[in-house]
């Protein structure tokens, strides 16, 4: 399994477009900027909604209403972030594959996205009144912790 994945990574980083991103002076920063712009939308909207469910900020309307408005941008952000992320990964695939911080990031990321899909179904139900049920608070604190873990692992990638 490890060998198969590693040879896939080797193939990926030698595709013409991955080589181009790695070698071009401008393509790599541009792809990084795509990744970060997407993340701003994805993490930014999730954090605002989570804090709102925790009873912080903008209490003039139920949390569910705000969540409803932001949901399309959360998913647009994820799409942009994944596009940029896959391109960044491809540029040095086998190095990322061997990096323990990257492996942790990837794992927590998969958990985080799955978790978000699960709780999002409940957000509009939980967010109908101005007072949020305790279960919603627990769910959103957990989600905030997950994304902080993802960012921490990402920050540690260059150190390993």
């Amino acid at each position, binding site marked *: 399994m490890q060998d198969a994945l590693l040879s896939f990574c080797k193939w990926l980083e030698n595709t013409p477009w991955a080589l181009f991103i790695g070698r071009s002076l401008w393509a790599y920063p541009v792809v990084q*900027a795509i990744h*970060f712009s997407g993340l701003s*939308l994805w993490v*930014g909207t999730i954090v*605002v909604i989570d804090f709102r469910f925790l009873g912080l900020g903008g209490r003039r309307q139920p949390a569910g209403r705000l969540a409803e408005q932001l949901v399309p*941008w959360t998913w647009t952000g994820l799409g942009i972030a994944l596009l940029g992320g896959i391109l960044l990964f491809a540029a040095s695939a086998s190095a990322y594959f061997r990096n323990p911080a990257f492996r942790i990031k990837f794992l927590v990321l998969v958990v985080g996205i799955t978790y978000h899909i699960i709780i999002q179904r409940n957000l509009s139900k939980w967010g109908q009144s101005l007072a949020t049920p305790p279960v919603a608070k627990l769910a959103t604190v957990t989600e905030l912790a997950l994304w902080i873990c993802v960012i921490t692992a990402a920050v540690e990638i260059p150190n390993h």
Partner: protein
Amino acid sequence: MSFFQWLEHSSLITSISNSKWMYPAVEVAHFFSLFVLVGTIAVVDLRLLGLAGRRQTVTELAEQLFPWTWAGLGLAVLSGFIMFAASATGFVANTQFLIKMAITVVAVVFAILVQRRTRQWDQPSGTPILAKLTAIVSLALWIGVILMAAEIANYSEL
């Protein structure tokens, strides 16, 4: 000794940059707050362009998000200053960093401008062309900030 050398070698900053966990923690705070800052600004800009959350008025949506924009900016500036201080002499000599700071200042001015005009721009017939133009410039400025931030690492030994 210049101010930047003094800053870099101040005891508070060296204890942060020598610590195994403090510097990464500051970086995490910087990224986290930036996502909130840029994310909330982008949603308001997209709403002004008529693309996001049209079930609420611009004012309704924006006043929910502005407090987070400023909270994000506060934390981003604080954490960013610590990161800057840890290698101050390297950063001040880095052209990309200086460009990033200049664009950031302009982008923040645009954010203030948007916040002050939101009510006025919020018309049932749609937002005026000036509002849309401001929103496009604001989005472009933040993409510029991110792009310059990505460039810093490619042109220095920081």
